[in-house]
């Protein structure tokens, strides 16, 4: 039989390993770039679908793309970021995966 205290001190190594792996993978961001052809309403719909954003937030990112040329839609681990970029390319948006500076 282990006391709860003993269980807690037997497992800390796993948590440290997870953090180290995440740290290696963290600095990636999904960037969407301006494109004069894609419709604003279409871009907004794509952001809602791909990232599950509420309409207002999707519109905010769409306007950022339109007015500033680019918007960072998501940041985190590379694998998931790649998946997002692939989905965005499937909708024919100009999207890239970039290391966080």
């Amino acid at each position, binding site marked *: 039989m282990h006391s709860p205290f003993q269980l807690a001190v037997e497992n800390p190594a796993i948590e440290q390993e997870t953090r180290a792996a995440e740290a290696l993978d963290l600095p990636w961001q999904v960037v969407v770039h301006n494109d004069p052809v894609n419709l604003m*309403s279409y871009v907004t719909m794509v952001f809602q679908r791909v990232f599950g954003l509420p309409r207002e937030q999707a519109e905010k990112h769409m306007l950022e793309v339109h007015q500033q040329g680019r918007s960072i839609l998501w940041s985190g681990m590379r694998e998931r970021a790649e998946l997002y970029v692939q989905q965005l390319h*499937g909708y*024919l948006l100009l999207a890239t995966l970039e290391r966080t500076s």
Partner: protein
Amino acid sequence: MEIRRQGDCLEISELDPFLAELLRQIPESTNPDGAETAQQRLFSSPAPASEREMCAEWKLYVEPELRRLFQTATETVGADLQQLNGCTKPFANCTLRIPTKNADAWLNALNQARLVIAAKYNFNEAELCDHYRSPIGSRRDLGLFQVNFYGFLQEFILHELKM
């Protein structure tokens, strides 16, 4: 031309022969062959050029999937457009019914066509925003009209999807 929701379909009626022909040209217009800029736009880079390995892997594994996705959308639209071949009289107006389950395929194919045409003719932002340009005096003008007409259809489909 009239466009409205009819049950499980988006109905475009009173299509005159000119607009019907523009619709028939959607699948063909999605073809970027022979225009490097159009190819590059449909299959854009997933990362800055410095990420060489990622870009190479993307070309190898992801691009074929994207090609299949775009091809499937184009084929779905092509199949819906077969209805236009049923117009019996050569200059009569006709009707096209787009099943709402195909709406995503239409959005995708229309977008492909708009991007390819815009890339082939190198339209700038000012030209793309000029919705009242007329008359159509050249193949380039027709291309711009196509981009705007297809954009109008996209707007309608998006509007209906929200309802």
